[in-house]
């Protein structure tokens, strides 16, 4: 066999980000249930949100994320279970006496007040002495880059500016926790992406615990320290964005976080940390066993993200590869989406490939080979 160039998928030791911060709990949610008659909007949810953390509640509409946020804010009360903020139980404490402030989805800017009066709204009650109120308003406006717009009427602002006013109005209260209810959903794509970066930067600058509710997985992945993925009133997984994306606990989470190829697998061996499974397309694979893995007979599901499959060009080979035929090609500008039929697999694989090597020119019907890293194959419960 002639010597062929080998592509070894990069396996470098990457420096690990230092995420060690004093992990003190800021919000403790213990077995919280919220029922409306027979319907449980939130079902026995338990969660700890750490001090100084950017935490996201992610899920489709109706999953209970907003209900949970509103209960932390004090606009709703648990049917059972308890919530504490900063070590203080919140039961019986109304919204106006909680150490939390909220950025509303509709922003809820007071339309009869100007920007400054909106931001100073909560401070008025504190009766601050000697220009302190003015100083804090200025500071908050500067934090959200609205300096100089203090005299504008709320009705004269753009959506992005209103959002900033809502942020400043909450931050000026120096809450222990800032709650954000889908704050970016009303903005157009470009502004939304810009605000994601700004929000993240702001959170790191002020060091306040942020709790964000969103249904946009990219938003959650881009901004959060940790994410709780919720479905049907239950918390499915709590982990860092990377872990949620790469090691989803079940198909539902995997699906919600973006494209995923699912492959049927037979369990050959199972121990406390790992699984060995047999698949038709990928052969025998050893993977980490997810914490929440519950064995259901001999079957399991193996998943691989479309971007973890790389097209092998010409004579290049890889240690791990599968061969198949391109059946569909979809062009997306910077990437191309290929649907590749692999003999033996019940469903063709989705592959996203960057266009720098001409993936957008591969004709439908071409036989190609795909390289993968077995570590990208993740076992999960169905």
């Amino acid at each position: 066999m002639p010597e062929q160039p080998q592509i070894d998928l990069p396996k470098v030791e990457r420096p690990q980000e230092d995420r060690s911060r004093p992990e003190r709990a800021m919000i403790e949610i213990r077995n919280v249930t919220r029922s409306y008659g027979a319907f449980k909007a939130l079902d026995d949810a338990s969660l700890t949100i750490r001090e100084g953390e950017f935490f996201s509640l992610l899920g489709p509409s109706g999953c209970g994320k907003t209900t949970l946020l509103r209960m932390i804010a004090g606009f709703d009360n648990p049917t059972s279970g308890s919530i504490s903020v900063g070590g203080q139980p919140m039961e019986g404490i109304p919204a106006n006496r909680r150490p939390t402030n909220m950025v509303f989805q509709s922003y809820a800017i007071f339309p009869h007040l100007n920007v400054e009066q909106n931001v100073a709204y909560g401070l008025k009650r504190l009766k601050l002495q000697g220009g302190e109120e003015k100083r804090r308003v200025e500071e908050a406006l500067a934090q959200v880059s609205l300096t100089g717009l203090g005299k504008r009427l709320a009705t004269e602002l753009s959506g992005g500016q209103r959002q900033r006013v809502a942020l400043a109005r909450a931050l000026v209260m120096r809450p222990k926790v800032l709650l954000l209810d889908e704050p970016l959903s009303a903005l157009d794509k470009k502004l939304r992406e810009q605000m994601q970066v700004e929000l993240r930067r702001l959170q790191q600058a002020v060091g306040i615990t942020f709790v964000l509710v969103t249904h946009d997985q990219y938003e959650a992945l881009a901004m959060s320290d940790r994410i709780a993925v919720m479905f049907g009133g239950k918390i499915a997984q709590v982990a860092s964005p990377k872990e949620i994306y790469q090691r989803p606990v079940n198909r539902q989470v995997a699906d919600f976080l973006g494209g995923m190829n699912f492959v049927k697998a037979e369990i050959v061996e199972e121990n406390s940390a790992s699984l060995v499974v047999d698949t038709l397309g990928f052969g025998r694979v050893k993977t980490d066993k997810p914490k929440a893995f519950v064995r259901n007979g001999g079957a399991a599901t193996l998943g691989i993200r479309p971007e973890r499959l790389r097209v092998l060009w010409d004579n290049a080979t890889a240690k791990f590869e599968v061969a198949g035929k391109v059946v569909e090609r979809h062009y997306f500008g910077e990437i191309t989406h290929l649907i590749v039929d692999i003999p033996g697999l019940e469903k063709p694989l989705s592959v996203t490939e960057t266009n720098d090597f001409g993936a957008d020119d591969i004709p439908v019907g071409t036989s190609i080979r795909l390289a993968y890293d077995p570590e990208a194959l993740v076992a999960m419960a169905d």
Partner: protein
Amino acid sequence: MTAVRRFLSGGWLPAYAFLYVVFLYLPVIFLPIFSINTAATPKFPLSGFTLHWYEDLPRTPALLDAAWNSLIVGVSAAILSTVLGILAARSITRYRYPGRRTINGLIMAPLVLPEVIVAISMLLVMLQLGLSLSLFTVVLGHVLVCIPYSMTVLTSGFEGFDRSLEEASADLGESAFGTFRRVTLPMVAPAIISSLLVCFTISLDEFIIAFFLTGTEATLPIYIWGQLRFAAKLPGVLALGTLLLVASFLLMTIAEILRRRAARRTQNEGGLYA
């Protein structure tokens, strides 16, 4: 041929619209025209211009009494119906409960009930209750007919009131009363003032209920009715009628402007999208 085609294609619509407006407003135009005519009988051709009939008005004590009575009744009825209207409109726009639509319908019903029947029924009730007829009973009657108008104005002002504004206020530390004072009230104030003006205007012009429920004290419409028996007094009545017309028109215009402002405020328009 062309005329027929033009007719079928709707070319007659502007003419129709013009006649429509003439039909609506021609009678009203006669009032001011004859009120500045020198002749005592309203008849064409006009005989000459005079403001004499207007000058006479303040020199009639019975008229001044009636105007004062109307003012008292109008202000009281406006305040009472607006207060009741606020409570009802708030409940209907803010809460969802069984029977909400029915209740709304029942509150609005006096708008279409025959006024004579309402007036007679009220008279019977007042007498059964042993109330002697006075301006007070007129006020009660007027509240009944004013509430539907008050409700219409107020619900349009309250509707779309973003509930998260009140939540935002609470979230920023404000108490329930403070929230009402600093957020709710300033936002709905234009609608409330608008309701007061509308109710006052309705009460000022109302005749049938006042006619049945008043004792010896006449309101302006009743005074006018009384004067119509004397042919010589007719120009004075026309002058007074013109003044009432102008006053009503002005008050209603202001009320409508305020109502629109309130509706615009609560709807938080243009804010959701950048």
